[in-house]
Each structure stands twice: as C-alpha cells, then as structure tokens.
C-alpha cells in the first residue's frame, strides 16, 4: 500500500538535496514526517545540541503530493532514513550540454513510500532523466518517532533579522580553527558584534601542566545595526554558539535570498535561526553556551566600575594575571587578590597575543571593538571561572531539554532543565590539575602550599 507519494521537479530535487546536504553536516540520518499539508525533514545531532528542521509546504513545493496514511497513523507518517543514500539519489547529474538529446539531467523524480502488512517497507525514488533513462532506488527505512526540539517563542525576546547573504559574507572573516561565536550588541555604538574565538588549549609543559590557548586569536566583526532589518536585543547580552553549526547553516542559508531571523533569550537557553524560501521553512535550534547565574551576578559590579572608570594604567600587570587565569586552568581558586608576580612565576612563557580571560567576556564598555581585547580590565573582572565553563561547554546537551513526546508542555521542560543545570553547577575536576591541589579546595587550604604570597 502506498502511504505517500510525491513528485519533484528538477529544481525541487536540487532544493531537497541542498537541505539534506545541510543536515548531513549535523547528523547521519534524517526523520521524514509526512502530513496532509506538509512534509518535514528533521534531525538532531549526536550531542543533541542542534536540531534542524525543514518543512516543505505541499502546495508550493511539490509538483504532486498525495498522502494516504496508514491504518495506525491516519494523520501522519514518519520514518528515519540514511542521509547518505538520499544524497546520492537526489544529487545533480552532470549535464552534457553539447548534445541536446544526450541530456542526462533530471526531468522529474517520483518518490513513493510503500508500507503495510506483508509488504517490504521501502522508500522508492524513481528518477527520470531527460534522455529517457529511469533509475529507481528503493531504500529501507526505520519507523521511528521523530524527536522535535521545543522552542519557546515567548521566552525568546531577543531577536534580529539580517539578509542571509550579508551574514554569509561576514563569515569569510572568521579565522580558521575557531570554535565559538559570541554574538552581542552594543546599543551605544549601534553595533552588533560577532566575536569568534576558541577555548581549545594545548599542553606545553609536561611537568607543570602548563597550557596555552591553541589559537590565541579573537576576531571581532562589528556590524552596524542598520544592516539588520529588525534588532531587538538586550544590551550587552552575550550569546555563544558553535561556529561549526553556524557555518553549516549559513552555507545553506546563502542559497536563499531571504532574511535570516534569530530568536533567543539568554545564555544556556536555545537559540533559533530560521528563514524560508519558496515554500520551504528552515528552522535551526541551537543550544547556546551557558554561564552560571552566580557568575553573572559577580560580574555585574566590576562591569559597572569598569564602565565608569577604565584604568589604562593598570593594564600590563593585571592583564598578565588574566592571561594566566585563562591559560592555566589548573588554578581553581577564585582569588581576586592574587598578586601578579606570583602568576608570572607559574607561567614562564608569554603568549604572543593577549588573551581574553574567560570565554564569557565581561561586557564592559571599555572593550574596544578592535581585533583584540583591550588591556584595561581590572582584576575583578577575570575571575577564573574556567573550570566551570569548560564543564558547561561539554555538557550543553544536558540542558537542552528536548521533548520527545511532542506534547506542548514547556513548563515541565523548564523545570527539568533547571534541575539539570543545578546538577552541573557542581564543579567537576578540571582537566589540568596542579599537582596536589584539589580543584574544590578552599582558598585558605591552598594558601599554605605557599603558592600565593599574601
């Protein structure tokens, strides 16, 4: 029994291929979900930190679409397929343009899903070429309930929209080897900053576990708010997402000429990127790198101070200390009064670039919009929060709170996510340990090792 069949034009095949190629950058398999009025392809990546969903409007995208439904599921049909095999079917065939009758391009593609009792469950794609050859592929599939990510639109008050092409052009400036992208706004200067950086550390010394940033380069791209169609973002809100995911999305988004919209609430909560073109709605829900609430509070005061009175004369020493903090994560002590000379002892090598202390940049107005972080930060600003943040990065998935049941019940999800966040807040042993010091030890206990001169 044919559950579903539809026909795609040559352009439709190309659009479908592009969508699948984009998904393939996140996951190996895709969930197909068919309803009377739309066909949805969705996937969740392995670490459950990114969710991709393409919805194809039946009346606009397909040349023909017929959904029958199964006795079990009258309203919808779903299955899971390998993206790799779909990609080879829907790939564009090379056109030999020289001879008109030798055209090997796709004329149309009929897809049918055959299912039922006593039948082989197969997705059959029949590709007809202009030269008269037809190829039919039948793929086995797995009946599996699709997982959909929930996104609370009411919560996500921050939003902006920009032409996807413009955004794609900005991406050219991203340096290679970076991992994270920090999107933040500056209302005073009317700019939106895209800062990309990496937190990957490289161990240098065997003895003292000295670690340095692998790519000590921050690239900040400041975009004037006029470039955006619609910006409504809390001032100086830093939202951090994975650059790899962002790249993959923009790669696809640039093919559509429309505007890309981003919606988000605050760090640690999902961010949604969406755009639509020709009956295809593309939605991406990405987990953002979170920060501890307490941390935010701690940051608050010094930020204000720094904003009011930036102290350029403090720069060299304080900055050195901050470099240590980010490099040498082994030091868990939240010491704000650590004298800089000690820090110098523990770190014989001076990095070539000045490193911003923490992945969550303290949003000071004193920060320049240049390539590198300014040196006017005070000691209070760079509290070594790295062990926690590292852990948070690793554990993004835990907080995601995807709802498998597909029932709109956001409140329970919220609670669950908060609970898991609390669990995370307990510091795990960081990667790089100073021998003998437990990362959870109190400062008083550590002092007696003589690491810090009071």
């Amino acid at each position, binding site marked *: 029994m044919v559950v579903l069949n539809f026909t795609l034009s040559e352009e439709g095949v190309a659009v479908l291929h592009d969508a699948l190629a984009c998904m393939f950058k996140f996951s190996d398999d895709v969930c197909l979900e068919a309803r009377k009025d739309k066909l949805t392809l969705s996937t969740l990546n392995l670490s459950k930190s990114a969710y991709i969903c393409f919805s194809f409007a039946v009346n606009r995208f397909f040349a023909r679409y017929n959904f029958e439904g199964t006795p079990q599921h009258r309203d919808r049909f779903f299955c899971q397929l390998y993206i790799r095999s779909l990609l080879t079917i829907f790939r564009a065939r090379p056109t030999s343009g020289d001879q008109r009758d*030798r055209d090997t391009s796709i004329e149309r593609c009929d897809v049918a899903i055959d299912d039922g009792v006593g039948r082989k469950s197969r997705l059959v794609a029949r590709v007809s070429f202009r*030269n008269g*050859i037809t190829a*039919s592929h039948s793929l086995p599939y797995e009946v599996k309930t699709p997982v959909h990510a929930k996104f609370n639109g009411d919560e996500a008050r921050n939003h902006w929209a920009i032409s996807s092409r413009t955004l794609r052009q900005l991406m050219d400036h991203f340096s290679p080897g970076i991992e994270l992208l920090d999107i933040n706004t500056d209302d005073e200067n009317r700019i939106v900053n895209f800062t990309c950086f990496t937190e990957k550390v490289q161990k240098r010394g065997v003895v003292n576990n000295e670690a340095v940033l692998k790519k000590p380069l921050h690239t900040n791209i400041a975009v004037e708010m006029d470039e955006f169609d619609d910006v409504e973002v809390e001032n100086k809100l830093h939202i951090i997402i994975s650059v790899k995911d962002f790249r993959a999305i923009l790669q696809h988004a640039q093919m559509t000429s429309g505007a890309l919209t981003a919606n988000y609430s605050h760090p640690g909560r999902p961010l949604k990127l969406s755009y639509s073109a020709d009956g295809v709605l593309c939605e991406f829900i990405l987990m953002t790198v979170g920060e501890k609430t307490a941390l935010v509070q701690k940051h608050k005061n010094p930020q204000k101070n720094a904003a009011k009175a930036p102290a350029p004369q403090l720069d060299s020493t304080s900055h050195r200390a901050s470099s240590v903090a980010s490099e040498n994560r082994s030091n868990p002590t939240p010491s704000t009064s650590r004298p800089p000379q000690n820090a110098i002892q523990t770190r014989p090598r001076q990095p070539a670039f000045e490193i911003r202390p923490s992945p969550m940049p303290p949003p000071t107005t004193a920060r320049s919009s240049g390539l590198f972080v300014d040196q006017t930060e005070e000691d209070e600003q760079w509290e070594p929060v790295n062990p926690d943040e590292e852990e948070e990065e690793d554990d993004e998935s835990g907080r995601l709170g995807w709802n498998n049941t597909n029932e709109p019940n956001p409140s329970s999800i919220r609670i669950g996510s908060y609970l898991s966040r609390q669990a995370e807040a307990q510091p795990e042993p960081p990667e790089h340990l100073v021998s003998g010091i437990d990362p959870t030890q109190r400062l008083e206990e550590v002092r007696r090792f003589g690491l810090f001169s009071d």
Partner: protein
Amino acid sequence: MEGLGAGPGPPILRAVASSTRPLYQLLKAIHFTNKIHVEITENGLRFAADHARVMQGVAHWNKGLFTSYTTNLPSPAPREGDEDDDDEEDEPPSVTFQVSLPAVLETLQIFGAADAAARQARADVDPYRSNLRNYRADAFSNQTLGMSGTCAISYAREGEPFSIVLDEAGVTTTCNLTTYIPEAPDDIPFDIQDISFKIITSARWLLDALTELAPTSPEKLTIAASKREPFLRLSSSGGPLGSSSVDFAKGRDLLETFSVGGRWVQTFKFDIIKSACEAMRIASKVSLRGDGQGVLSMQFMVEVEGSGPSFLDFRFVPYAVCDDDEDEDEEDEEAEPGRLEM
C-alpha cells in the same frame, strides 16, 4: 637500440608510434590485472587480461596506430586474417607472451618527462603563475598530447624483453620489460551462433547507469533484456543501503540496435562489471551481447584520431543460476586458482 637488432635475423616485432596516448588509453581500459597476455599478429598487438577466469578484457593495438609496423612471425605462412575483431577463432599463427601491465602503462607515461622539467623551469621564472595544481599537465602539454617524440616497440624473439624506446627532445628512454611464458588461458567461450540478444547503445549511457547503481555499493548486478518494456534493465542488489535499478525504457531513443530473441536475465558480480568503467568512459559506443549460456560480451568502440576505431572486448561469466547462494560462492571458489595465475 643497436643492440636490439644484433641477434640473428630481424626481430619478431618492430613498431614505431608517434603518439602514445591512444596506446595508453586502450591499455588503461583493461587495467584490472597485473599481467596481461600479449599476442603479436600481422595486424597488430592483442592484449588479453583475465580476472579469475570470470572476466576477460581484450584490447587491440591496431596496426593503424603505428607509423610503421613490421613483424617477422616465425610461422612460415601466416594466413591473411581480416581485421575484424569479432572472430578471434580464425587467427593467423602468432607469438604470445606475458608482460606486466602496470609496467607497460608506466612506461607509456614516461613521455612528457622533459615537459615536466620545462614546466618547472617556467614556474620558476614566473612567480605569478599559480602553483595551484601545478603538477597537472595542462591541455597542451606533450604528456596530454603524447606526441612530442617517438615510441619504438620491439620484441626480438622468445625470451627477450619487450622493449619500449621513447625518444623525446633528444632524451632517449629505453625500457626493457621482462616477458613471461604465456599461460595460454582459453578465452571465455562466447557462442556467436547462439546470441540471445544484441543491443548497441552509447557507452556513456551504460556508464551513467552503473554510476547510478554504484552508491548503494551492491554486490550483484542483474542485467535483463526483454522484448517488452523495460527493454533493458540493470538492477543492483545485495548492497547495505538498498537496491536500485536503471531502465532503458524509451528504447527507441536510447538503443541504436535492439534485437532480443527472448527474455535474457543474468546476474554478475558488480565489481567485475565495474572494472569495465574505464572502457565505457573512453568508448563512444557499446555493443552488449548475451549468449545462450549466459556469457555477456561487451564490445566497445573507441574512436582514435588519425586511425579507424579501435575495439575493446570484455566478456563476463555470470553467477550460476541456482536457488542457493552456496553454489554461487562455489563458483567464486573455483575461480580462485585462476587468480593465482595472474
């Protein structure tokens, strides 16, 4: 070069070609084994490659590809055979030996070595020249055209090396390839009297069809020819990602010649058919024939500039038609000793 002719009597073969490109292309198409049988006849050289006795590929270097071609075959009265490749049974006496195919291919590519040096020199003086893909020969390089010098092929007598002398821009490269005693494998029998179907189509279509089937990494390929639609169907099975099939349903446009006695369905190992892909790439037309026993013959017509068309012959033995898979495996096992011969 003087040494070659020093023996008693003229050498069995002496041939000179101005371009190695067609020679290389034709041999490349049967590059699926290590050793090939070379047969020297009055009309040219015949190279036969054999894979596990289930696949055979034959390439011909027609006399016409050479600017001069002289043979001195030992048999006293070699009959005048015709140039048609179809009837191999009716061949004049000939000299046969084996030679390493990768070595021959490598040798034929030596042309252009001086060219590469010149290109390097040019790159050195011109710093603005992109060093991107500098290693690739451009369209007009001598290596691509294969016509900068001369290529002399000779074979003195039995036991002597197969010698290829390349002369290019004053640089002479002499390659003496060891010859081996022939194993005299019989050709895969193909009964021309009992042909079940004959289809001539563009080699390009066949290649497209196989490309279409290949992504599912199938194990078997079934070729079915029938009088009604679909006239010709290639279908793959045994792959982990599902199965596929390609129909040549609009027969009139696609198939140049189409004569089918009855329904003919045979299954082959996909990989051995895929070995013929290089031939499909360079050929313009392919003639598919199947005989009553199920042997498939593919004949490719390769247009070579300056001389007439050259032909490449492939023959494939199908899987035994049995209900059990074991028998098919057995056939493979039987074929194993043949693999050792290579």
